[in-house]
């Protein structure tokens, strides 16, 4: 494990940035945080969650896939993607690191999504332990340890020091480059911190929420539940929950008419929207109840069904704090699981 005084943080960022672009949470000037490309003067903001999740790095809200050019009777197809450069993301929370695993299973399974793979291969992830989790956090339910975040490098921050531990080959290479700015220390130096975090986690209001009733083979049990009507009653169908969610992965592919050809692009879609999966015959989910059910069944039942029991929620709590009507996956889990107070 390596250790660096916080007074040298800027030098550390500078050094990382020399070999690969560095991105970290910084103020969005509106009370929130947004991953920002580091440059001199950009300050790391030690907030819990950025409003937009770091999935944007690998699966951006919209991206151009290819271009079709019309030349007389011929159509020329152009591959317009750009090869990603190496980059480093600093300060990713344990929940968000886990979300990459959820996304990987979708985009890196056959047929592999080469757009996603390209970016994923060029990234080094430095995670950050959570000293002050929020009341909306429930990562522990998914077996995530906020005191030992995964990633290529794990980081812990105290009042005066930053601790860094490499978990992968990529991580070790990065830390090797920073050796002049850091000093070796024993892993046990972060143990008190970890204990403190784990104690706070035990006090979280959502601690103890159970996933026992969800996962594989539960489709029949919940699909026709009368509770969906009540739960979705106030849902606006806005899609905020899906767009701030680090694990929501649905997209639409569309053609943009440029006048002399077509740009084919993809953009995030939301199962909460009326035209989601609209096909020639129409839409398969015509009411908000059905659309609402889809979002939660996908996370709690369908995805685990197809992915060895892994859930496609990581308990980051973004949907809890951002839904305009305060309806969310926790309320759904408690109601369906019979845990409602």
């Amino acid at each position, binding site marked *: 494990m390596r250790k660096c005084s916080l007074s040298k943080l800027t030098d550390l960022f500078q050094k990382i940035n020399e070999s690969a672009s560095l991105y970290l949470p910084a103020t969005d000037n509106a009370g929130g945080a947004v991953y920002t490309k580091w440059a001199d003067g950009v300050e790391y903001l030690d907030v819990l969650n950025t409003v937009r999740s770091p999935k944007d790095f690998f699966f951006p809200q919209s991206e151009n896939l290819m271009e079709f050019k019309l030349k007389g009777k011929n159509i020329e197809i152009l591959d317009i993607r750009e090869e990603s450069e190496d980059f480093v993301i600093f300060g990713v929370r344990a929940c968000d690191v886990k979300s990459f695993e959820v996304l990987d299973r979708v985009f890196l399974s056959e047929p592999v999504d080469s757009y996603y793979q390209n970016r994923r291969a060029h990234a080094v992830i430095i995670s950050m332990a959570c000293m002050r989790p929020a009341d909306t956090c429930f990562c522990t339910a998914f077996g995530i340890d906020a005191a030992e975040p995964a990633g290529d490098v794990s980081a812990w921050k105290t009042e005066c020091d930053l601790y860094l531990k490499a978990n992968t080959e990529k991580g070790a290479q990065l830390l090797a480059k920073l050796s002049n700015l850091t000093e070796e220390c024993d892993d046990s130096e972060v143990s008190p911190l970890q204990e403190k975090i784990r104690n706070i986690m035990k006090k979280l209001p959502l601690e103890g929420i159970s996933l026992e009733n969800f996962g594989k083979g539960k489709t029949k049990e919940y699909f026709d539940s009368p509770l969906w009507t009540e739960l979705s009653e106030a849902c606006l169908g806005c899609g905020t929950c899906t767009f701030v969610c680090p694990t929501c992965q649905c997209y639409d592919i569309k053609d943009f008419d440029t006048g002399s050809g077509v740009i084919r692009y993809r953009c995030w879609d939301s199962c909460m929207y009326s035209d989601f999966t609209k096909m020639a015959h129409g839409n398969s989910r015509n009411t908000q109840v059905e659309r609402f059910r889809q979002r939660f069944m996908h996370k709690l039942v369908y995805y685990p069904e197809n992915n060895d029991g892994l859930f496609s929620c990581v308990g980051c709590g973004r949907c809890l704090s951002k839904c305009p009507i305060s*309806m969310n996956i926790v*309320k759904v889990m408690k109601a369906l699981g019979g845990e409602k107070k």
Partner: protein
Amino acid sequence: MQKVNRDVLLEKAAAMLDAGEVQAVLGWGAGEFAYDVTPRVFETSDELRADFVWNDFCGANLSKYLVSKTKKLEGKLLVFLKPCDTYSFNQLLTEHRFEREKVYAVAVPCEGMADVQKLKALAGDGISSIESTDSGFSVTTIYDDAPVEVKGADVLLEKCANCKSRKHVAYDELLGDEGEVLDSNRFDEVERIEAMTSEERFAFWQGELSRCIRCNACRDVCPACTCEKCVFDNPNSGAENKAPTTSFEEQMFHVIRAFHVAGRCTDCGECSRVCPQNIPLHLLNRKFIKDINTFYGEYQAGAEEGSRAPLVDYTLEDLEAEDVFKKEAE
């Protein structure tokens, strides 16, 4: 902070439900925490007693739900309305969006609603309990720190900090005392932006709107946005767009929406309240309201049921286009 107690609302609604005078009650339901209130339709007095809340976190405007919820019921729906909500209520009636006979409107006085984000910024993210005090809140967190005392006035929702009226403009029954139309400072920020050069103004809005994730929460919560199918959702409209791919598209959505609600927006503040990116959307709407006041005389959408907004009304006294430019030059 609220002067009228939850139980007053609860007993009113429960009595009417039990007597069969209303079929259901549209109110605010309890959440997981002290602050995450969800709009809800209650069908029995037992449900009400278990989950109904009226506290400082009932910022959500229930008026728009009347459009869909009244259609599903045979009988009457009791709805609780704060002063600002009654303006939306009137505006929806003006636009014939629901049947008045199907609603029993109960007006509730309001002392202003709290913004959880502001509260968390002062007290910390890990809230374990919130107690109301005379001047605001006492907040305890999970971090073992001492409870934080927060002044209510410091954590008001924007719409409440600049409240235009404590007076209810429509109801069947009022609980508690009636308030008054206020002299608010709601146009101060608009004036600050008007004073910018056009370059500064463009940069300001570009900065704000560049954060937009096009989640549509602002539109979907807006009581003036009740089109059955929004052009932005309609694949046949030619304007459908799910993600802002360019800054032009970012602006287009908001400019079109602001124009579409101009003269109909009651300034209920819901768009800004729900925006996950804290974009000050109310400023766009207030600019239109201010301009309408300047060019056509004072007009408050929703103040009176059936009033005709200047933009859809013609009078001989209306300004000519050149006068608008002259006035603007002043």
